[in-house]
């Protein structure tokens, strides 16, 4: 019901913006969508074919004055239908920006934090050659992957800019946001608000030189381990002398490194992300890592070919009560790692300034390195898509 109302509201805003745009010529409405077809084959399950409206984004942008501008971004995912309970509709960004000069811009409101190269533009499909984006940036996977554990999704105040030093530009960004402990139960109070007194604090420093850039990013916040990192609400009762409160608001550090470079017709893009939890318990492991690289070649202004590799590594702990129900000293901890490894190849063909055709092959392999959690599956994803800039 709430989704339905939100969609109606969006529709009214969209129509209204057209009228305003005619009168004022300053409010700009634009966006894009990516739609396609996917064939999935696997050794262990039956093949699947699906058409999919993967993503549609609508932007509203207004230059308020020389220094002030505002921006709103609605994102609609996975064949969104509120009546059928498909997909999701999200307000991704709604911010006002004050740009004093090249070295100082202040952004206030809901925004995507600067983290590595891809985080801010991960959902800008016309900019990217991918159909399925490098794992943690594939927002349409958000229903079943903990994407926001890897990278920050929301900030509410950002300061950024650059300083030119010779031919180099030194970029910086600093931001503040909520912790991940957001209330989603209306019986406990207002939803969408932070339930802690802590903040997300983060930033990036980087350099740009010609068509290359590199940077280091970091964030710090506090998260409820059992709700967010481990996903086992009642596990703490097994840990002698510990209560669930011991695992609330535990420090979480993210570190990211990014590099992208265009050299003649060759393109390299690569990132590394490490997430470390200070869980206060040596036997508990929940850290995670992600890296990817893409190597591409511009055959022409229109055709781009690429290949690459993505991998996530997630540590986990299996707690076994070997005395079968008597909690205490006989608890056994087994630590392991869960991997998703994806070799990928594809092409993007720019039909014109607004339409890009894409093809991609990805072969994700899911595996774990402990006998208690045995998994070793491989699937083949063949995808075709068209990305349209409106």
């Amino acid at each position, binding site marked *: 019901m709430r989704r339905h109302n939100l969609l109606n509201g969006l529709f009214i805003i969209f129509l209204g913006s057209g009228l305003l745009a005619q009168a004022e010529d300053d409010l700009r409405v634009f966006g894009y969508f990516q739609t396609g077809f996917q064939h999935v084959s696997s050794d262990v399950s039956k093949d699947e074919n699906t058409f999919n409206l993967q993503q549609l984004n609508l932007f509203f*942008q207004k230059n308020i004055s020389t220094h002030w501008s505002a921006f709103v971004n609605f994102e609609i995912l996975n064949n969104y239908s509120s009546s059928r309970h498909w997909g999701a509709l999200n307000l991704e960004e709604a911010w006002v*920006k004050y*740009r004093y000069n*090249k070295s100082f811009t202040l952004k206030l409101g809901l925004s995507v934090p600067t983290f590595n190269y891809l985080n801010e*533009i991960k959902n*800008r499909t016309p*900019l990217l050659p991918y159909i399925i984006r490098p794992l943690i940036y594939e927002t349409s996977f958000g229903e079943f992957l903990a994407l926001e554990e890897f990278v920050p999704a929301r900030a509410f105040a950002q300061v950024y800019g650059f300083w030119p030093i010779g031919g180099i530009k030194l970029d910086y960004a600093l931001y503040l946001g909520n912790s991940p402990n957001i209330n989603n139960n209306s019986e406990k109070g207002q939803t969408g608000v932070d339930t802690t007194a802590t903040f997300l604090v983060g930033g990036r420093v980087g350099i740009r030189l010609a068509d290359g850039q590199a940077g280091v990013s970091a964030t710090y916040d506090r998260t409820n381990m059992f709700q967010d990192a481990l996903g086992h609400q009642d596990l703490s009762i097994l840990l002698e002398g510990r209560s669930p409160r011991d695992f609330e608001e535990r420090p979480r550090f993210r570190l990211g490194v990014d590099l992208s470079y265009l050299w003649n017709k060759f393109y390299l893009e690569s990132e590394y992300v490490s997430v470390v939890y200070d869980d206060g318990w040596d036997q508990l492991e929940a850290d995670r890592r992600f890296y990817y690289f893409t190597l591409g070649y511009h055959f022409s*202004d229109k055709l781009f070919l690429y290949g690459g590799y993505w991998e996530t590594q997630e540590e986990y702990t299996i707690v076994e009560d070997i005395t079968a129900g008597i909690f205490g000293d006989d608890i056994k901890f087994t630590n392991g790692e869960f991997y998703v490894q994806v070799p990928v190849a594809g092409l993007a063909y720019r039909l014109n300034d607004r339409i890009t055709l894409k093809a991609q092959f990805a072969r994700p392999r899911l595996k774990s390195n402990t006998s208690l959690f045995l998994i070793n599956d491989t699937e083949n994803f063949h995808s075709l898509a068209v990305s349209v800039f409106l």
Partner: protein
Amino acid sequence: MHRTIATILGSFLWLSFATGQVAVIANKSVPVDEVTSQQLLDFYTGDVKLWENKDPVIVTDLKPEGEVKALFYEFLGKSPSRMKSIWLKKMLSGEGDPPEALKSESEVLQKVSSTPGAIGFVSEANISDDVKVLTVIPRKD
């Protein structure tokens, strides 16, 4: 007869560019008299949006692909398609708008001469006294 005139006119126009160069022009209100390729790149990528006197920089582009446009972007060290992808990224990030792409050099002249803070590029042979020339890009032979 018509064909002959057209051929002569075509040859004349070709010669006027072949012997000429590309001029970077600006509205007479801009507070500088010359620019470097790096400064131009900063203006055209939207990294720098204000002149020294805090007036906004209004950049213009030429819609038709051709030698003038190619020479200008070569001077900036970017291909027109690379510039398009930079502008698209800026636009989709809410960081700025692409330059207004005008249909002809006369439209660029008209826009630049009548808009405070405006900057653009045309063939040197087409410049008028209504605009300021910030630099001339030599043609490579």
